[in-house]
Structure formats: structure tokens, C-alpha cells
């Protein structure tokens, strides 16, 4: 169980993580999804006790990450993003070392067990520098599993692996999720969709959305952009829709193969029924009317776009930094 409450990390003036709150349940894989530099690693480092938060709190397995750091560390298995290992040690030697520091009993047998678990038992006595990237990743994972912690925190475990290794690792993560509280970060959207029971989307240090992949898809029906197709003359249909209440804009998008992209005026408005009634009432043949975002990739882009739009409205042209966000939308 991971409970994060209003967690904030500042480096001087810059806030890397701004008031993040979410929970990760036992027996579930929680995906921490966001572009590079969104604050995923910083948040995870605070959860593992590596760095203290500036404000806010977080509980891991029932212990406060700041006040009860040692208890938290005993109960967390952590795979850091860069998978730092001692290159001159053997895989087994490294696990023995970490196990001894952790005070794991019968550490040799336990090291063999976890090496077996990650499918690396036949390379137990190879020096880590001779192992491939995928194997090193698995040594790191074995290290995280060594003390059989109830909570696993894996920072971008699939980065830099070949497609086959990625598939293997994803199935291992799913498997581990069944009997652990598992938080893992990724910037690959399809991965989060495949592996996670719950997704937390973070962008620029703030959580933009969270829920199960299905819930997020459902939420997008409200406030998100809408795609409409008509049989003929999309321009005329767009003109018609533009006049409706709750619609901010409607443009024919050549990228969408002549589909009309409709932007609702409010975050919570869903003008789909009104649009459908009007279009059909005018005798235009409606082919399709659906939320623009149907997979997590589109959902993600939608959420970050909305965030950017809101910010621009709030801050006006005060800060030029908003440029980068609108680009991503």
C-alpha cells in the first residue's frame, strides 16, 4: 500500500513535484505515466526514502517515508532508473552483498531463489559487466525482490530493452503485481495500458488524471474533444455545429481524413447529444460521433492539452514556458 498526500519537492525555486496525491493498492500494478522530466523519478525517490519531500507526506506499507524511513526501506524493493550495479561483482555476489546489508537470513539460498525467479540462475556467477542490458535489468529486479518486500517500486524497468525482453519484463511485472503493491513508471503509453490496473498520469510535476485505463477512457467522454464524421460536405456540418451551445470550435481536420474535430466549451460539458440531434434533424447523414481519444495515448495527449489550455488562460502571456506545453498538445 502506498498513500501519497500532497507530496512536493522543490529545488530552490523550481518545483519538480507539485502537490501530488494518489494511492497504490496491494495486489495491483499502478502505472506512473508521464513524459520525461514530469517528476516520476523524483516522486519515486521520495517514496523509497532516498530524498526527503519539501512538503506533504507519503506512507509506504503504513510507515511515513520521512519519519520512519528505515521501516519503509525494509519494506520496499526499488529498481532505480539507471539500474546502478557494481560492474566488477558477479550477479550472485551483488545479491549477497545487498542481502547482507539488509540482514537477510540464509542469504545465499535466497539469492539463488530470486535469480531463479528472474530467470538468471545460469548466469549467477557471471560478472555484471559481461551481462546484457536486459540481464542487468533483471539483476536489479532480483535485488529489489531479495528481501521479499510487500512494496515494489520500479523506475522505468523496460527502458533500453529489446522488444522481446520488454514483453518478458511486462509479464513479470504483471505477475509480481498479484502479490505486491507495485508502482512502476513508464513514458510508454501502450505499456501502461497493457500492464496496469491503475494509471496515474503526471505532467510537469502535477497529476493530470488517474484511474483505471477504462475509467480514463470513460472520463474522456466528458470535456474531451469529439470526433464527428458525416457522409458528405463536412464544412457545412462543421458550420452548423459551431453555432450550438457548449461548443467552442468545430474544424474539419485533414489529418482525420475529413473528420470534424469538435472542442467543447467547458471542461465538463458533453455536447454530443445536442450535436447528434441537430445534425440528424437537418437531414445530414451522421457516420460517426465519438470521443477523440480512445486509447491511452490519445487520452494522455488530451489531458496534457487541457492542462496547457487551462494554464494559458490563467497565466495569459505571463510566462513563455507555456509554449512547450502547447507544442505537445
Amino acid at each position: 500500500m502506498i498513500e501519497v498526500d500532497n507530496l512536493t519537492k522543490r529545488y530552490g525555486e523550481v518545483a519538480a513535484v507539485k502537490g501530488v496525491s494518489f494511492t497504490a493498492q496491494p495486489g495491483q500494478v499502478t502505472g506512473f505515466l508521464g513524459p520525461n522530466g514530469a517528476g516520476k523519478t523524483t516522486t519515486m525517490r521520495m517514496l523509497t526514502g532516498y530524498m526527503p519531500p519539501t512538503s506533504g507526506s507519503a506512507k509506504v506499507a503504513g510507515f511515513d517515508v520521512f519519519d520512519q524511513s528505515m521501516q519503509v526501506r525494509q519494506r520496499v524493493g526499488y529498481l532505480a532508473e539507471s539500474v546502478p550495479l557494481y560492474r566488477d561483482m558477479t550477479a550472485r555476489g551483488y545479491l549477497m552483498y545487498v542481502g547482507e546489508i539488509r540482514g537477510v537470513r540464509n542469504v545465499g539460498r535466497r539469492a539463488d531463489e530470486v535469480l531463479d525467479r528472474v530467470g538468471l540462475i545460469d548466469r549467477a556467477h557471471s560478472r555484471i559487466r559481461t551481462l546484457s542490458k536486459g540481464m542487468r535489468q533483471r539483476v536489479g529486479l532480483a535485488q529489489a525482490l531479495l528481501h521479499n518486500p510487500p512494496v515494489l517500486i520500479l523506475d522505468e524497468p523496460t527502458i533500453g530493452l529489446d522488444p522481446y525482453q520488454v514483453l518478458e519484463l511486462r509479464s513479470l511485472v504483471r505477475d509480481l503485481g498479484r502479490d505486491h503493491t507495485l508502482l512502476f513508471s513508464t513514458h510508454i503509453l501502450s505499456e501502461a495500458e497493457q500492464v496496469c490496473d491503475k494509471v496515474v498520469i503526471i505532467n510537469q510535476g502535477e497529476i493530470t488524471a488517474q484511474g483505471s485505463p477504462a475509467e480514463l477512457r470513460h472520463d474522456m467522454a466528458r470535456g474531451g474533444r469529439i470526433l464527428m464524421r458525416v457522409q458528405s460536405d463536412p464544412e457545412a456540418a462543421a458550420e452548423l455545429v459551431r453555432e450550438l451551445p457548449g461548443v467552442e470550435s468545430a474544424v474539419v481536420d485533414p489529418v482525420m481524413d475529413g473528420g470534424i474535430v469538435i472542442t467543447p466549451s467547458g471542461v465538463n460539458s458533453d455536447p454530443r447529444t445536442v450535436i447528434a440531434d441537430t445534425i440528424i434533424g437537418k437531414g445530414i447523414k451522421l457516420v460517426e460521433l465519438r470521443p477523440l481519444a480512445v486509447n491511452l495515448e490519445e487520452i494522455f495527449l488530451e489531458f496534457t492539452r487541457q492542462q496547457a489550455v487551462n494554464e494559458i488562460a490563467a497565466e495569459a502571456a505571463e510566462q513563455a514556458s507555456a509554449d512547450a506545453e502547447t507544442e505537445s498538445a
Partner: protein
Amino acid sequence: MSVMTDQSTPHQSHVLSQDVKMGGSVPFWAVFKRELGLYFRSPVAYAIAFAMLFFLGVLFNGYLSQALDAQAGVLADAGYMPFLLTFLLFLIAPLLTMRLLAEEAREGTLEVLMTLPMHEGQFIIGKFLAAWAYYTVLLLLTLVHFLVLNSIGTPDMGQTFGAYLGAWLYGGAVIAVCMIWTAVTEDQIIAAFLSAATVLVLYLADVAALFITNTNPQLAEFVRELGLSAHYGSTMAAGIIRLEDILYFVFMIIGALFITTRIVETRRWRA
């Protein structure tokens, strides 16, 4: 209660993992064993040992022939070799310590260490003790010279003991001071240079004191007492064991390791 839970039964392992009970662990001992093992497997450490023994051997040879020519009673000065060794420490100690924390920081392994249930002080002490233990081995190797002296003369046993005890503590203090710089920077070369410079300054403090002794004798005495030489060359190397000298080295070790720990902690806060 054991952590050896069976992974093949998820339910059971989940229940057990909630209250994992570890054996009594002494983390610094694991760190110490690994670091000491690394010294004995590292070519650099052997190169240091070789260079030191070679250099000391040449000097010892010169010292012997000079003393034999003079036919004087100065021959059996057993404090000479430990004294030379302490001088060489400004080269040896930085080379032994530069890797200890800088490499972990650069490779990112420090991040893993700091998420293990172990206080920073534990692995800093483990690493320090490993470096000191390796230095102890070097120091014991120089006993060869004492054996040679013993076979052709009659060295003063009390002086020998004092000189070697002093050289041992001196080495501990210098290594601890060098630990500070390896914690400050990720660059081993910079750590080594800054360490060597610091040790030289501490070594030459009594020379600096000479320059100001006329203008400000009290300050001069203070500066001299801060330096390493005032607590070894004229006292322990000559067989005079004073509590204040032992305390000086012990407090130097504790103080330097404390500073190192704080630096590593602050790096983490800023990381």
C-alpha cells in the same frame, strides 16, 4: 521468522512479506568486507604497495649505508621508517580513498545504498575501516625494515612501539580526512588532488607556524597544534606516547567521518 518464503505460493508469500523479520544485520561489516576485498583484488592497490615499499627500501638502504659509514650509535632508530611512511601518506591516502565514495556517486550505486535500511554513517565507517585496514597491512609490511635493524643493531622497543602506533593512528586520521573529499566530488582525480593538498597543508602546519611565531606566538602555537607533525614527528616517532596526541588523531578520525556523513546526507537532500 524467516524471509525465506516460497515464491511459488503467492498468497503465503504475500502474508509473510507483510511482516518480514530479518536477522540481526551489521551493515558496515558487509561494506567493510567488500571494500577490503576490492583492495586485495585491485591492481592499483598493489601498485601503491609496490611503489611505497620500493621507495622506502631505497631510502632505508641509503640510511643504513650512511649510518654504517658514520659508525655512530644512530643506527637503531626504528622510528625512521614509520616516520617516512607518514610523510608518504599525502600520496598514499588519496590514492586509497579517492574511489570510495566518488565512484559510488558517479555510477549511481549510492542511490541504491541509500534506499537500503542502513544509516549513511554505517557504510562510511565500513569504507573507512577497509581503507585503514589496507593501510595497516602496508604498515605491517614495513616491519621488514625493523627486522633488518634488529638483526644488526639494538633498536629501542618502546620507541618502535610508539612510532608504529603513532603511524597507525596518523594513517587513520589522514584517511578519514581524505574521505571528506571523495564525498564532495564525483570526480576521483579531483578528490585525490584535494585530498593530497589538504594532507600536505596539515603536514606543513608546523612550518607555517614557524613563519608567524615571531609576530604572534600564541597563534603560531595554535596552528602548530592543529597540524599533524606536532603530534607525531617529535613525540610518538621518538617513542613519547602522549594522551593528547592519541586524542588528536582519534578526534580527527571521528570529526572527519562526521563531516563526511553530513556531506553525503546533504548530497541526498539536493540530489
